């Protein structure tokens, strides 16, 4: 796949997402001019890019959607749900095609037919007769007239502009296009600003404006009747120009101009000319440096700018000339010659290195022609492949480990050689490097931080589609879109959130009738809220539906035999409600195609726990349910506790550790055949880590207090008995690889400062 194609895939996805968002908002908040414009531009750009990578099926479909949106924009059609549906399904199809294109480099065989059917469906929504008046047809028609010769208006404009045309021509321009735009008299009432369209024309070479019919005397003039003809010549491509004027196709003529119809490009300025231009500009600089000519300021600056501009045009530097002209105009306005002087000095520098400037202009030329106006105003973002950032993260991680080795060296220097002073110096160096490494690591991790907004974006669509299907009125509220978390986490959030929102829509939210009966507003609310709390990243999904009834859950759980009857009875209501996350649990009366397969909530817990988070649920029958996902913000770095048991070191993730305690033997008793102790009114079973790892247990003195790490995972609690706590470290956890890839009970490995490999336990898996 070429770079162009890769870029197309990335940009197409962004445009699809943006257009879908805007369509949803359009439906919800009504059609503002600006919003339709945005949707329209997205479709238009998509269509253009599809043409560039030669996907005609995609172009045809998007073209039909574009025509439909044009009718909405012109007010010929209201934005009905049917139209939004059709536009969204067009985006869906395009999105699938983009996936196909990325995977196979081409569209599937039936794409042409699919595209045709979809285009037909889109066109069927057009008002009668509008289907025939396709925007762009005017452009096609006038293209044919090129063969017959240049239209009169174009010939006139070329004659009037003469050499100026050639001197403004960007290097490498492949096409020259002439535009004749005669806005209809009532165009101002349609919200049109014809000049505004002209301003968007890229690489303008000439522009002319004149009254279309004789101008009435001032006393009789109608200020809101447009009586103008705007003609222009530009170095853009005809299709691109047609795109700008596509909403006024009946008022514009766009014609490709053969190069031989233009005056010949003036011979490239020779070096003698260049030297002359330098001299001329230097003279203008000298003129501007004379400060006491305040009496004739305007004349002086105006003349300097004009002379310099003309000289630059003559020497074939149209961009520099335009720049000088603009600065000059600005200076006159602000009565300050400083900027013009600076600009001219810069021009002199640029002229010295004219060769490289030319190269730069060549590179910019065609690219600038191809870029659409929207892309120019878009925020400049550097795209970096994830793999490169990943490599940086790994390197920074290695650096953390390498830095830890310094502590070890300091210890050895002190212990083996008795060099206290040197050891101290190494420690200080370590501290300094440590600070930098932590900062570096943090900064690199910031690169991976993405706002959760990109995940939230899909939900307005989902809620809209599902609630329509279920005949429920639901409003989605999202808050905290700017909260950021590591990309790995944000990427994985989508699936659990989909399950939560679908569950809320399907099970939580009542039908409008039920809601009325319960005295609630008919329109239900689902909110998704992201927030940051210290180094945790929280997401709460709340609905104001019927809530979860513990009694129903209890009955279902016993029917499905999720738990032995006695255990089930012993659970509190809160613990019972938590059972909805148990594998195989579903409260839906019948399986729908939306949710209710009984797997959703299970997936939520599994995924969130995989990324080191926790899920909790709070529900009040009749009032609603809140599910809270509590996750770390980054997963690249984890904090572990290094413990010793049976003569070996192990790591335990601090996420799982709730506390470490020393317990005297008399507090330990046998509870259900298992030793345990009571901690804050909870029974904590004891697990010997050495025994679990099949290591020799250290004989302990009977009376001595024993050391435990109390861990909690998946709602279970246990105290691991250990011999000692060695360290607390921030480490980069590597997953188990090779032969050990399937070893259970380990979260991964990390390198210690002395080069030893530390096994980090997966507490959840080793809990009995």
């Amino acid at each position: 796949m070429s770079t162009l194609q890769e870029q197309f895939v990335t940009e197409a996805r962004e445009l699809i997402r943006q257009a879908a968002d805007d369509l949803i908002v359009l439906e919800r908040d009504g059609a503002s001019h600006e919003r339709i414009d945005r949707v329209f531009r997205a479709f238009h750009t998509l269509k253009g890019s599809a043409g560039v990578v030669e996907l005609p099926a995609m172009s045809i479909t998007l073209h039909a959607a574009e025509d439909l949106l044009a009718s909405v924009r012109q007010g010929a059609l209201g934005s009905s749900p049917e139209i939004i549906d059709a536009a969204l399904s067009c985006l869906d199809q395009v999105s699938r095609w983009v996936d196909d294109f990325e995977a196979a480099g081409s569209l599937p065989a039936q794409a042409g037919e699919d595209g045709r059917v979809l285009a037909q469906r889109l066109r069927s929504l057009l008002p009668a007769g509008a289907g025939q008046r396709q925007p762009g047809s005017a452009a096609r028609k006038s293209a044919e007239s090129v063969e017959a010769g240049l239209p009169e208006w174009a010939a006139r404009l070329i004659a009037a502009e003469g050499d100026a045309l050639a001197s403004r021509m960007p290097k490498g321009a492949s096409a020259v296009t002439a535009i004749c735009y005669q806005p209809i008299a009532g165009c101002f009432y349609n919200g049109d600003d014809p000049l505004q369209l002209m301003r968007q024309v890229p690489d303008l070479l000439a522009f002319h404006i004149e009254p279309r019919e004789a101008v009435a005397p001032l006393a009789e003039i109608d200020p809101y009747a447009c009586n103008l003809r705007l003609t222009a010549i530009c170095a853009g491509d005809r299709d691109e120009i047609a795109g700008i004027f596509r909403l006024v196709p009946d008022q514009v003529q766009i014609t490709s101009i053969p190069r031989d119809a233009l005056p010949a490009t003036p011979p490239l300025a020779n070096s003698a000319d260049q030297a002359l231009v330098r001299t001329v500009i230097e003279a203008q600089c000298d003129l501007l440096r004379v400060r006491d000519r305040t009496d004739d300021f305007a004349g002086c600056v105006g003349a300097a700018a004009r002379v310099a501009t003309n000289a630059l045009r003559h020497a074939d530097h149209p961009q520099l000339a335009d720049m000088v002209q603009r600065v000059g105009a600005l200076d006159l306005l602000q009565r300050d010659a400083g900027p013009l002087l600076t600009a001219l000095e810069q021009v002199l520098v640029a002229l010295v290195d004219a060769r490289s400037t030319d190269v730069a202009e060549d590179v910019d030329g065609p690219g600038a022609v191809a870029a659409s106006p929207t892309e120019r105003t878009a925020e400049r973002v550097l795209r970096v492949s994830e793999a490169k950032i990943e490599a940086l993260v790994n390197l920074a991680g290695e650096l953390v480990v390498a830095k830890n080795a310094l502590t070890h060296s300091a210890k050895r220097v002190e212990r083996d050689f008795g060099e206290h002073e040197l050891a101290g110096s190494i420690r200080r160096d370590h501290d300094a490097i440590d600070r930098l490494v932590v900062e570096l690591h943090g900064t690199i991790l910031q690169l991976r931080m993405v706002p959760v907004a990109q995940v939230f974006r899909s939900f307005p669509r989902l809620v809209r589609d599902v609630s329509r299907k279920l005949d429920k009125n639901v409003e989605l509220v999202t808050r905290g879109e700017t909260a950021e978390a590591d990309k790995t986490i944000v990427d994985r959030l989508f699936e659990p959130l989909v399950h939560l929102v679908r569950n809320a829509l399907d099970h939580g939210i009542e039908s409008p009738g039920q809601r009325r009966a319960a005295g609630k507003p008919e329109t239900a609310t689902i909110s998704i809220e992201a927030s940051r709390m210290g180094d945790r990243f929280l997401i709460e999904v709340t609905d104001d539906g019927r809530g979860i009834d513990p009694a129903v859950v209890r009955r279902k759980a016993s029917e499905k035999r999720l738990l032995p009857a006695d255990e089930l009875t012993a659970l509190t209501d809160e613990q019972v409600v938590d059972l909805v996350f148990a594998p195989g649990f579903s409260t839906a009366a019948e399986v729908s195609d939306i949710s209710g397969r009984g797997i959703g909530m299970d997936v939520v817990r599994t995924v969130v726990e995989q990324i080191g988070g926790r899920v909790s649920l709070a529900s009040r029958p009749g009032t609603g349910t809140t599910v809270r996902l509590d996750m770390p913000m980054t997963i690249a770095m984890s904090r572990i506790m290094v413990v010793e048991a049976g003569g070996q070191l192990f790591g335990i993730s601090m996420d799982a550790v709730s506390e470490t305690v020393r317990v005297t033997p008399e507090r330990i008793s046998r509870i259900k055949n298992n030793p345990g102790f009571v901690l804050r009114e909870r029974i904590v079973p004891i697990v010997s880590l050495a025994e679990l790892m099949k290591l020799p247990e250290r004989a302990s003195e009977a009376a001595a207090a024993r050391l435990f790490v109390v861990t909690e995972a998946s709602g279970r609690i246990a105290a691991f008995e250990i011999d000692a706590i060695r360290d607390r470290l921030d480490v980069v956890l590597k997953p188990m690889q090779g032969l050990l890839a399937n070893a259970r009970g380990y979260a991964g490995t990390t390198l210690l400062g002395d080069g030893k490999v530390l096994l980090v336990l997966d507490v959840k898996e080793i809990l009995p």
Partner: protein
Amino acid sequence: MTVRRGDNGSIVLDGVCPVEDAEPLLQMLQTMPAAELDWRPCRQLHTAVLQLVLASGRAPIGPCGDAWIAQWLVPKLPQNGTGG
């Protein structure tokens, strides 16, 4: 107001002049037939406003603050003698 009377009796176009400015501008042009037009402070002119400037036949006091118009249109307009 983006169309206003200047201190020296001129008609001043100031800032972004939208389509709504056409009406007041026309009134001023009609009631002040001798007033000069000053478009230095304007940033962007709507077509309807520009149309009236052109129809008035007056040479505005330049340079025009709307850089696009200054670049593409002004060189072809009758020049105002004061120049600034």
